[in-house]
């Protein structure tokens, strides 16, 4: 379970990743394909949109986890609820992309490696542990949605525009 400290560590370190999100996405997929080249055919040739989607989804999840225990009674709209979105995501990965359970480990490794590259010294033992725990829980949730075909999950929606990452790099403001 994520503690308040875990959630804070994730939110804080994510803020450091945001400005280099394009690089982070590059690093992530490069590492993923290194770890398991058989995954390459699952992705399109032009990865630009895919990379943006990945970072947007991560951004959504990080924001969705960022609430204090004291706010447990508050609700959020179902279209912005981490669990429901992640379940929908898991179902789509299973049904459309035929992702297998073992692939989640590879993705987790690539993600932690990417964060380590991007954060450098800021990727402390605590930060690493928090991300690992969060990824493990999210991955488990995605995997558990494999049989959710007939259930009334929201169709994987377009995440609201507020989760779009600011364009950075030479073209940015």
């Amino acid at each position: 379970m994520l503690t308040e400290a875990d959630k804070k560590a994730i939110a804080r370190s994510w803020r450091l990743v945001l400005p280099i999100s394009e690089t982070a996405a590059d690093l992530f997929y490069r590492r993923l394909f290194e770890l398991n080249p058989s995954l390459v055919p699952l992705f399109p040739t032009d990865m630009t949109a895919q990379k943006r989607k990945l970072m947007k989804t991560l951004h959504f999840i990080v924001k969705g986890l960022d609430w204090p225990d004291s706010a447990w009674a508050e609700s959020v709209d179902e279209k912005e609820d981490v669990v429901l979105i992640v379940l929908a995501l898991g179902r789509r990965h299973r049904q459309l992309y035929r992702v297998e359970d073992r692939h989640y480990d590879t993705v987790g490794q690539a993600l932690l490696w990417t964060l380590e590259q991007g954060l450098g010294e800021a990727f402390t033992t605590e930060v690493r542990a928090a991300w690992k725990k969060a990824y493990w829980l999210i991955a488990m949730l995605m995997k558990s949605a494999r049989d959710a075909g007939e259930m009334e999950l929201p169709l994987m929606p377009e995440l609201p525009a507020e989760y779009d990452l600011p364009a950075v790099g030479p073209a940015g403001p």
Partner: protein
Amino acid sequence: MAMQKIAVLRGSLNDISLPDLVQCLSLGRQYMTVELEASGGHVLGALLVKSGMLLDASTPQERGKHAFFLLLGDSRAANFAVFRLVGSLQTPRPLGRIDSLVLESVSGEPDSAPPAPPAPALPRASDRAPSMTVPSASGFPASAAAPGPSGRIIAVCSSKGGVGKTTLVLNLGDALAERGLSVLLVDADPMGGLGDSLTHRVRQAPGVYEILTGRHALADCLIPTRLKGLTILPAGQWPPDDGEDAWRFSASAWSELLDEAARGAEVVLVDTAAGLQGVATSVMRHCDEVLGVLQAEALSARSFRGLLNFIGQFSKEGRPRLGGIVVNMFHYQQGASHHAVHDALRDLPPGIVMQPVIPRDPVLVEASSYGVPVALLKEHAPSALTGIFDSLATDLSLRLGVGRGPSRQVTTLVD
């Protein structure tokens, strides 16, 4: 909007363990229920989670934290179904953070295990022929397993502290004993209700806690008073921070304690902890009747509605029912006091309020500071006050259909 239950997920516990599942589900902010089934489809229980918190857990026999522990350890659980609850849901108070509860369940600390059931001193009902079950003289079925009188178990409850619950228990108990009934006062408040206002000896004595934990038998903990027919079961030595965790005592431990108490007394008056959490609710579930104590004051009146709703939920399950409402600390000359009572009691059936109401009176405060019923404050007690408790006792015995009449005269309640 009525509450809707939307199916979200279904799966096998071979693929994901129950602690993992509830932890994952509670990453989100929706109310989620998890139903657990045995491989034959038989439902074993359900959990309600939201935002990292366990809000409720139930099995056919248990409710609360202990039900969660039971479900975590239930080897028959094979499949799960997850539903999202949408609509108006009264915000419950969480039983705890899921991760700490899971830790608590595996750490095996002695207090978290249900107390071992005491060796049965009496034959089980199932050991006897059904024909042994006969109605008792008082009209209550007295099963073969519970010979002798089976008294009425009455919980005295309030939505907040400081409303004079303990004073009421003591004085009502005295007045009922005065009428010739055998009365047992049970101090079920871990923070010590009765014990606190009585003597040092009572405060140090073993009691409810030691019985629940299986360290003492009920009979060894009873403290006779000098008043014929009035006995006290003290709270015992609750660990300082254990009030909240008193959930962990299994429902059967509480029901065994109270049922055994009822075998030895015609009326068991239970002084509960204030509020609707932990011990108070565990106790209420095993009582026949609840007397709600309403302090005639605005703040108290507001929270009192919560208590009534709560009892209402229990009553749907058949036990306990709301036996009556005692209005306490009534200030005749203050409009606010009248308004508070009026607000708290609106839409309730007339006749639910017990008569008479208890006025705000310094003598009552004094008597409770000595830990005695007002009747024992010889020099000060105006006859009107003792008369009030006598009349309340009359009202109560009429409601319960028990009671007779002799009297006696004593000075102090215990040594």
